[in-house]
């Protein structure tokens, strides 16, 4: 409708139109009385005259009502939009500025970041708003504390410009599409208040059109009388190298070290880049890698490091060469502290050279690393074993043990119930009668006689799933290709019950199970259906044997603290849940970051899961938790989600098809912007015309009423 009212709510004052009617009726003006002896000369045309009097009477009433209505309409700030609107561009509008402050907007071009370009353009757009306009700000990402940065409509556009200047890159980024939906909702709500439909509305979105920001785009329709401009501050070609992700973990063989696997990606240009690894405050490694254009490259780094006392190891992977988007050139890492696994190896012949116990003990604690390895080993003859030996043990390993007494088995079951670990290598000496009761109860299996491959033949080793934590380290052929292991003989296993929780981890070529794992009480037990002896398998001589024994013992021991993190790598803004076996209440914690150390609340977000809400920042964090049974230092890293700095762009066609009434431009001074604005600003306030109309109506009323009712006549 061409005519609309800026303060339409005031039109309720139109009810005041009844006032002149009431006044008119209450104080209906009587004709002036006078004598006239020559009355008889008046009688001609008197009927027509009475009709004319009534018409004039109604005319005065109409003029009074019209004057009130026009005055009320004038106070409601009428405006006219349409072909007859002259002085186009002077009508105030409702404008919403949407700023995409996702990490990709930190891309630097022409000396400024894209966010700085966007802020400049946004301020220009705000400055070009007609006087009397109101504007709001919607920011796609959250503030440093996770707080929303949106600002409601204000007529103080200067203040809004200052707010725009203060918007920074946010790692708490949400979708720009969501931000646009919020902006449109604001426009609708502003229009819905008391029928405030005066403004045409303009929405300006400043974005680099990164696909990651618009990925959740669904078909949306802009509100009525709203034109949306998406100002593209990005570029089709981008020169960015980034670290998509990195993972770090302790590896125990051949000696304890940290293994870091990182994925690198180059956007448009392939090039060689210098990668640096920093751990515990020092550069530990650097390497030049070739990053292909538009493809990812995985790179693994092995960092030998002396283990610090129970503290997590923190650091980062960095692309040392600068590029336009530096935010994704560093990836922070935290490696949880590696605890020494206390192993007790039982064997009937523990001192036998080249025996199974020999290989296992040397794999866990090589003589050259005694005291520094991730495991400590005690060798004991099976006949000397008493359950008391398990007091300082995390993992019990049976190698070539023929049988154990009933008391010994009871002690082992208690040990498992308390969370201990058990690994059983069931070679030729092992008597099924001694093991099967335990195995039936907890694994649902029984072992039989030894089986052998044919003359000159061997059986291969097939891992069913590398997802199991015990074998995850061997995924992808790492750690010496465990699947190359060959067996001459093995212990036959048959399943006797579907009960039990035994997971089959590996099989031989013929399909016989050779490695099984099962939880027992609070602990874990592993069955290996072979003896680690070179006479029956080449496994002890392979490179994969040492990590295999360490990973198996580490997993079986499953040592967990009272308070721990389920993982140590988080995205910025993610909650960090702590697992707490003791179900302790809220904690006081001090979180140390690379730049400062501050107390933070450690609250119980749910009944059993305390959560640290870490503040916004990319970096490494140490949470020193006090209030639990003991002091615990927990480390974690906060990085950007991998897609946040992806500069792949959404196509303009897709954007325009999804968003109705949207114009994509690269500059707010684009001719299409000014043309489209005429739809919203092509109107002018006609307050002055209404005032003139009111004056004319009042003057007309005064003239007619004065002449008709009040004037004494000529003479």
């Amino acid at each position, binding site marked *: 409708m061409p005519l609309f009212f800026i303060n339409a709510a005031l039109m309720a004052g139109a009810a005041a139109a009844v006032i002149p009617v009431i006044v008119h009726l209450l104080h209906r003006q009587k004709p002036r009385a006078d*004598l006239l002896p020559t009355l008889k000369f008046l009688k001609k045309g008197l009927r027509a005259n009475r009709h004319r009097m009534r018409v004039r009477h109604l005319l005065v009433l109409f003029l009074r009502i019209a004057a009130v209505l026009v005055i009320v309409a004038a106070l409601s700030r009428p405006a006219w939009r349409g072909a007859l609107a002259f002085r186009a561009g002077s009508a105030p509008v409702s404008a919403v500025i949407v700023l995409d402050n996702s990490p990709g907007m930190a891309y630097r071009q022409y000396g400024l970041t894209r966010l700085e370009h966007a802020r400049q353009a946004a301020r220009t757009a705000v400055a070009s708003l007609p006087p009397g306009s109101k504007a709001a700000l919607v920011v796609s990402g959250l503030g440093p504390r996770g707080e929303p940065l949106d600002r409601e409509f204000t007529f103080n556009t200067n203040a809004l410009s200052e707010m725009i200047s203060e918007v920074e890159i946010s790692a708490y980024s949400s979708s720009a599409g969501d931000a646009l939906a919020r902006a449109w909702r604001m426009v609708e709500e502003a229009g819905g208040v008391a029928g405030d439909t005066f403004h045409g509305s303009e929405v300006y979105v400043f974005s680099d059109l990164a696909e990651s920001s618009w990925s959740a785009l669904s078909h949306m329709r802009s509100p009525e009388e709203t034109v949306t401009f998406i100002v593209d501050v990005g570029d089709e070609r981008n020169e960015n190298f980034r670290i998509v992700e990195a993972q770090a973990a302790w590896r125990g063989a051949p000696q304890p070290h940290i293994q870091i696997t990182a994925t690198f990606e180059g956007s448009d240009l392939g090039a060689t880049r210098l990668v640096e690894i920093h751990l515990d405050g020092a550069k530990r490694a650097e390497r030049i890698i070739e990053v292909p254009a538009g493809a990812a490259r995985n790179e693994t780094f092995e960092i030998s490091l002396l283990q610090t006392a129970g503290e997590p190891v923190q650091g980062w992977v960095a692309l040392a060469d600068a590029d336009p988007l530096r935010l994704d050139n560093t990836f922070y890492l935290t490696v949880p502290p590696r605890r020494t696994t206390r192993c007790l190896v039982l064997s009937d012949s523990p001192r036998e050279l080249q025996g199974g116990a020999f290989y296992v003990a040397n794999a866990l604690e090589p003589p050259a690393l005694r005291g520094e390895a991730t495991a400590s080993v005690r060798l004991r003859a099976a006949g000397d074993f008493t359950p008391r030996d398990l007091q300082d043990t995390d993992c019990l390993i049976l190698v070539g043990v023929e049988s154990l007494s009933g008391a010994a088995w009871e002690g082992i079951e208690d040990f498992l119930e308390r969370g201990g670990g058990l690994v059983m290598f069931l070679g030729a000496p092992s008597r099924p009668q001694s093991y099967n009761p335990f195995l039936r109860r907890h694994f649902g299996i029984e072992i039989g006689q030894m089986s052998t491959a044919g003359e000159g033949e061997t059986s291969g080793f097939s891992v069913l799933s590398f997802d199991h934590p015990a074998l995850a380290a061997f995924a992808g052929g790492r750690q010496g290709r465990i699947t190359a292991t060959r067996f001459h003989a093995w212990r036959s296993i048959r399943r006797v019950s579907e009960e039990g929780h035994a997971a089959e981890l590996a099989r031989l070529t013929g399909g016989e199970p050779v490695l099984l794992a099962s939880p027992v009480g609070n602990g874990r037990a592993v069955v290996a259906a072979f003896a680690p002896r070179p006479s029956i398998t080449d496994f002890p001589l392979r490179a994969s044997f040492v990590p295999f024994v360490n990973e198996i013992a580490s997993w079986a021991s499953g040592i967990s603290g009272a308070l721990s993190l389920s993982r140590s790598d988080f995205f910025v803004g993610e909650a960090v849940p702590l697992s707490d076996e003791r179900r302790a209440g809220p904690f006081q914690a001090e979180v140390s970051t690379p730049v400062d150390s501050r107390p933070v609340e450690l609250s119980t977000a749910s009944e059993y899961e305390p959560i640290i809400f870490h503040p916004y920042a990319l970096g490494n964090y140490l949470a020193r938790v006090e209030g639990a049974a003991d002091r615990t230092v927990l480390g974690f890293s906060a990085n950007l989600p991998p897609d946040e700095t992806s500069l792949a762009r959404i196509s303009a066609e897709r954007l325009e098809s999804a968003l109705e009434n949207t114009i994509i431009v690269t500059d707010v001074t684009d001719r299409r912007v000014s043309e489209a604005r005429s739809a919203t600003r092509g109107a002018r306030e006609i307050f002055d015309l209404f005032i003139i109309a009111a004056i004319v109506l009042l003057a007309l009323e005064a003239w007619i009423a004065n002449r008709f009712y009040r004037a004494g006549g000529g003479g």
Partner: protein
Amino acid sequence: MASYEQYLLPDVLRRITRLDLRARFMVEGFLSGLHESPYKGFSVEFSDHRKYVPGDEIRRVDWKVYGKTDRYYVKRFEAETTMECHLLLDRSASMGFRSKTLPSRFMTKFEYSTAIAAALGYLMIRQQDAVGMVTFDNRIREYARPRSRRAHLGNLLSILANCSPAGYTDVSGSIHEAAALIGKKGLVIALSDFLDEPDDLEKALSHLRYRGHDVIVFHVLDAAEASFPFSGAMEFSDPETNVRIKADADAVRADYLDALADFVADLKGRCHALGVDYVQLDTSVSFDQALVSYLSNRKRNYM
């Protein structure tokens, strides 16, 4: 303006409350203005002489002329003061009308007519004509027989001063009644708004003419009646019948003035046909028009 001539203006004269003074001022003002007026020669002070003939009264001889010429002359006017004049004054309620719309400086029709009647009486007595008076509304209310004595002027003025406009009008009936009452032929001057049926008025005036009277009709209208200065919504009421009419004055003005003009023209035409002098006056018009009309009639018929 000369000191006396200002008294010919109604708004000046109305400030003089004493009727005798009002009449005197009017006449003196009128006569002083005649020195310069086209009516010179009609003056009652002018004395024409004629030769003395036996039988003339000796006291009429103008001895000053004899002293200069040795011949006897007598003043002519002294021998012709035989006219009888009746003033018929309408005193009905409609004559008391004065519009609220107009400024209060205007007289009512009755005041205006009274002033004219007093002035005419003063003038006639001064030239020793006999003057009588009849006041009427729907019938004759006062009657004074014609006399030429100076003392009679006091009677006439007393009648005028003591009557006030009231009652409804029957101009025709009253004229008929007066025609029957007046015996000797003479001059009859009627002052009225003549708000009556033209046919009836014509009959009444023809009755007077039939009785041999010379008749002058002073048709007196209020200035508001003549010009209809009203504007806007008005409620008019007839002072005699109390009939009320609401009207948009602007809308009816033209029709009203047309109707009034038709009435006046009709009345004037009928008077002309009857040999009656018709003089239309309204309360804003100077009094000398009335006096001139009288004198021209007198000259035409009585000198």
